[in-house]
């Protein structure tokens, strides 16, 4: 349905997106995962025709949309990262405004507004000004405005940034239903890997403007098929302890977590006894060991040496 071919964007000398190839089939839900500054927003700005690429192409059903973006705009709903709403107006007035600019037929506009408000669970607050809403509610209306004209493709740019878990779950469930029940094609960007794991059939991982890995979740996780993830909870951490762990020959990566460390090791050998010895030497008390199944976060850590939220 949508395909990008060697999509690149440079602002003066700085290349922010480089040779990005990705595709979305109809009805698919695809995740674009990467840390802040990875180039996700620039990529979707180019896909949605807001930004002209420096080189490369965006194709809709095999046809380039760079020169004539009207085709893609007709089928696209874009939820920007910022709350792009009139804060002084009510939820209803905002939806009416977006319905009018998207030329929703007059006789359908009222029913579409109510349907969309119901979908985001804010029917009872429709007369209240946006500025009185919580962050989560604003995000839900931000999404609702992109749904009024029933787009075939929905692009969401980090739609859950800075909101409470309840609103976050509501949004995720709403996007899942749109994809599953209405067959809307979804491109979802996030730096929360658990959101992408929950929603998306396929994932593209971006870093420094490039796609560094792609595939279904299982395909990506297979990158770590030869590795184990061990979480170690300790009473204190010292640099010497971490350095000593890094020096164990089978340890691939060591990452500090809030209350301990996460270690990615080769599957071939059990290093628990080594860890216990090193902890004793450094006078560190180990509180808990935990073997974990690898996640997309671990895949990212494996590929870049950094966590998604670095």
């Amino acid at each position, binding site marked *: 349905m949508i395909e990008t071919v060697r999509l690149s964007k440079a602002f003066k000398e700085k290349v922010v997106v480089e040779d990005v190839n990705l595709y979305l089939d109809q009805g698919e839900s695809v995740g674009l995962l990467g840390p802040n500054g990875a180039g996700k927003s620039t990529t979707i700005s180019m896909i949605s025709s*807001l930004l002209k690429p420096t080189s490369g192409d965006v194709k809709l059903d095999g046809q380039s949309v760079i020169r004539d973006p009207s085709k893609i*705009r007709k089928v696209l709903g874009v939820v920007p*990262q*910022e709350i792009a709403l*009139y804060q*002084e*107006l009510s939820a209803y007035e905002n939806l009416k405004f977006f319905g*009018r*600019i998207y030329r929703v037929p007059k006789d359908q506009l009222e029913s579409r507004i109510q349907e969309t408000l119901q979908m985001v669970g804010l029917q009872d607050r429709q007369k209240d000004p946006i500025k009185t809403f919580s962050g989560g509610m604003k995000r839900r209306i931000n999404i609702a405005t992109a749904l009024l004209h029933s787009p075939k493709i929905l692009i969401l740019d980090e739609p859950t940034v800075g909101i409470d878990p309840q609103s976050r779950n509501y949004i995720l469930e709403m996007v899942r239903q749109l994809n599953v029940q209405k067959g809307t094609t979804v491109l979802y960007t996030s730096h929360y890997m658990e959101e992408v794991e929950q929603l998306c059939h396929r994932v593209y991982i971006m870093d420094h403007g490039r796609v560094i890995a792609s595939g279904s979740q299982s395909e990506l996780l297979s990158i770590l098929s030869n590795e184990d993830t061990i979480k170690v909870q300790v009473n204190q951490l010292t640099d010497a302890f971490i350095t000593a762990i890094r020096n164990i020959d089978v340890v691939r990566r060591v990452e500090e977590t809030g209350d301990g460390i996460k270690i990615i090791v080769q599957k071939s050998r059990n290093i628990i006894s080594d860890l216990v010895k090193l902890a004793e030497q450094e006078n560190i008390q180990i509180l808990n060991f935990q073997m974990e199944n690898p996640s997309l976060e671990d895949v990212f850590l494996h590929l870049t040496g950094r966590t998604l939220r670095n």
Partner: protein
Amino acid sequence: MIPVFLAQLAKERRNPLLIIVFVVACIGATMVFTGGIQTPTTIAIFSEEDHAQAIEEKWENLLNAEGDIRFVITDAAKAREDVLQGRSDVAIKLFEHDYQLIASVDLPTIQYIDHYVRKIFEKEAFINAAAAQSNHPAAFRADIESKLDHPLMEMDVTALTGDELSSYDMGTQLMFAFTLLVAMFMIGFRVNNVLKDKVYGLWDRLILSPVSKAGMYTGYLTYAFLIGFVQTLIILLVFKYVLNYDLGERFGLLMVIVAFFTFSMVSVAALLTGLVRKPEHFYAIYPSVIPLIPLVSGAYMLPGTMTNPVLTFIGDLFPLSHAMDAIIDVVLYDAAWQDITQSLILMILIGVVAMGIGINLIERRQSS
């Protein structure tokens, strides 16, 4: 275009404070700097003679026949009390052939009123004296009144150019200067909505919609034009009908000048919007620049006071000086269409050039 326009209107309806503040500030500033409400001076007259009513009615007609002071028959006790309490400067006690001024303080206005009333009484005494010499006093009186109305020789005072000599009313000039100043603020703040919506992502959403770029700009700028025009209209209507300011006989032509000025100012605001990146920058720069425009345009000074060619040149780059020229011509010199064409053309020219450069700059900022 229409949805964009309606959204701006809905925002204004939700929060009309700014327009109210501007209207009140403009009227307040004009009142402070031009000396208050321009209501005609009213003087109480009364008589305590035997046939008081006849005397009062006779002199009321004669005193009100000319001049801009209004003489009103009032109860004697009330007239005295008003003077005593300071509610009025003077009252006039009428006799058959004489009068007495009743005042509590000696004010310059009392001398002016005394001069006017004496002139009327002297004229009437002169006619009476002449009529008394005639065999037919009534016919003589009618004849002399007719001759006074149509004298054999009339003196006509004109300006050097041959035009009618008018007294220059600085208060009217200041009133228009303040009205256009607050309109410039309102217009600028509303044109800045383009920049605000760009920064907050609404502009991008509009781009992705079927609304064309031309439609988007037209929606925003037409709204800025309309709100600036309506604000000016409200203020002028208040001055004309509530505060009795003299706005001349051609209110329609005045509003045409205001429309040209508003268009031109929308364009200048678009140009200034194109020069900055963030709405906050605009809010910092615009209110600093705008108050200087009336100064360099000479809007607060008598015509001819501003002679510095550099300042005059800078002033002429903005529509205010041309609008003020046209307005003063219409209000004080009763100018017609053809007399103000040059000012209107200059405002259109400024508008077209500033709009072209402004939108170009805004678009460049978008793509950079």
